[in-house]
């Protein structure tokens, strides 16, 4: 186990804000593990405790066998960390930043160039430009290079794709796949639920708590009720009506469809619902059974938590 947390708790403001609430999970060597959740879920606090920048209030944890409190010096020498906020030296050039990070880890750019080559060649044309003057996408690539230049055993990436467009997000995940093949353990966080399926295992998080830890397939496979995607001509009217329909357990918009789950297992309920919608004037109704997405599961877990 390369990363291990056991009943970790972290509070701020003299205990009035609980950022991380009794969190335990482990990441295997070479695994690509995702922390998935909205702002305020506790993702960044977990990263900062694992990279020894914050002390937990209670609980314990380790990174490649080193204790996150006692062995902080050893952890700092071995891990790579890319914070959510761009944290390189803005007034050093691309090349200077990279050399600086290689040097403080007692290595050289040359010694580990093979690891960053694919990423670095994309920003190399700008190697004399100051980091502060780079575009968002290039900053992100430079930050990743600097986090990798000492060949870390574990790589921590805090929301690397937030605010980034679809195309760049896809590219970034391709880079992560290649790094995984180099045997680096990767812990990555994201608020985008659709990125969850690109990880081997994920922890779904909300308000400092873990809702579920498993492979994306197991999480979606455990979705309890039958789920349908439904659309009709008047989508906004349909949504209002579905919310007030007694056959419906839950109903949320998902792009061009609404996803609905029905109360009870009664197979008649489906045709009853369609009939009642038609009676109320909805036309071109299309309703099909679907597999749950991670976002369906996240919503479901949130709902269960508020009702229980």
């Amino acid at each position, binding site marked *: 186990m390369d990363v291990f947390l056991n009943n970790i708790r972290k509070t701020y403001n003299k205990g009035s804000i609980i950022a991380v609430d009794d969190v335990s999970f482990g990441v295997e060597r070479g695994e690509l593990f995702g922390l998935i959740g909205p702002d305020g879920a506790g993702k960044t606090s977990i990263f900062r405790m694992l990279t020894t920048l914050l002390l937990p209030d209670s609980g314990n944890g380790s990174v490649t066998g080193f204790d996150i409190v006692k062995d902080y010096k050893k952890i700092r020498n071995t891990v790579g960390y890319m914070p959510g906020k761009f944290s390189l030296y803005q007034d050093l050039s691309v090349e200077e930043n990279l050399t600086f990070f290689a040097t403080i880890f007692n290595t050289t750019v040359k010694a580990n160039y093979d690891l960053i080559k694919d990423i670095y060649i994309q920003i190399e044309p700008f190697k004399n430009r100051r980091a502060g003057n780079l575009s968002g996408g290039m900053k992100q690539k430079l930050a990743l290079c600097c986090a990798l230049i000492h060949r870390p055993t574990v790589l921590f990436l805090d929301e690397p794709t937030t605010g980034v467009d*679809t195309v*760049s997000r896809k590219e970034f995940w391709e880079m992560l796949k290649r790094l995984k093949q180099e045997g680096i353990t990767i812990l990555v966080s994201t608020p985008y639920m659709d990125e969850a399926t690109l990880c081997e295992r994920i922890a779904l998080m909300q308000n400092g708590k873990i809702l579920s830890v498993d492979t994306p397939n197991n999480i979606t496979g455990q979705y309890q009720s039958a789920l349908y995607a439904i659309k009709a001509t008047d989508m906004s009217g349909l949504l209002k009506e579905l919310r007030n329909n007694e056959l419906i357990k839950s109903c949320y918009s998902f792009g061009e469809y609404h996803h609905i789950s029905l109360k009870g297992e009664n197979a008649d309920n489906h045709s009853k619902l369609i009939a009642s919608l038609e009676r109320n004037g909805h036309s071109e109704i299309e309703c099909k059974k679907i597999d749950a997405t991670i976002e369906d599961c996240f919503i479901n877990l949130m709902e269960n938590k508020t009702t229980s």
Partner: protein
Amino acid sequence: MSILNNKEVVIKTEKLTKRFGDFVATNEITFEVQAGEIFGFLGANGAGKTTAMRMLCGLSKPSSGKATIAGFDIYKQTESIKKNIGYMSQKFSLYEDLNILENIRFFGGIYGLSNQQLKQKSDTLIEELGLQHETKKLVGSLPLGWKQKLAFSVAIIHDPKIVFLDEPTGGVDPITRRQFWDLIYEAADSGITVFVTTHYMDEAEYCNRISMMVDGVIKALDTPTNFKQQYSAKSMDEVFFELARGAQRNE
């Protein structure tokens, strides 16, 4: 396309352009948005969306081209434009160290509401959001989802013709994100035009029409349904990928 028939045009641009030195951030964009429409303004990072939006809000003077916003000229009547639009972004919305009521009164005052209007508007707004017992709470202490709903309500407190939303749902949980869109629909139903940017492609589907900006130009503009048909795509995500992957610029 029923929405586009005999409705008032509230945003009209013609070859609107913004240059910074020899860099053309926004390159001759021409489009129209009609009253009550939810218009999705999408594009890759660095495509020129922010620059275009700043011009439309009367904050940045175009280099060339024409535009009217809510009937006002983008060169000469920027103050009237500002009075007739609302603006909200994920990055800047409310003052964290003022309480809820103070924020409402502050922004209402900025938007020029009278004391009587302010009183009446803040009462309705607080009731609609169910915040009756929280009015004295500092905005900084509220959960992100509440902050964003409040910020949106404040952005339309003066019944603007158009509200500009710059990535309004970034970072919120999936349920709150959908509740936020309920607010957007309500605003649109009441006749307010919604001009919105987002990185969530499912949200693109909720727009009546979408424009796709790539390298400073509007590369395509259509309804989500037509986009998907044209690109034989299952989702807007695929459409976006097709349109933006050839982009040369990256912020």
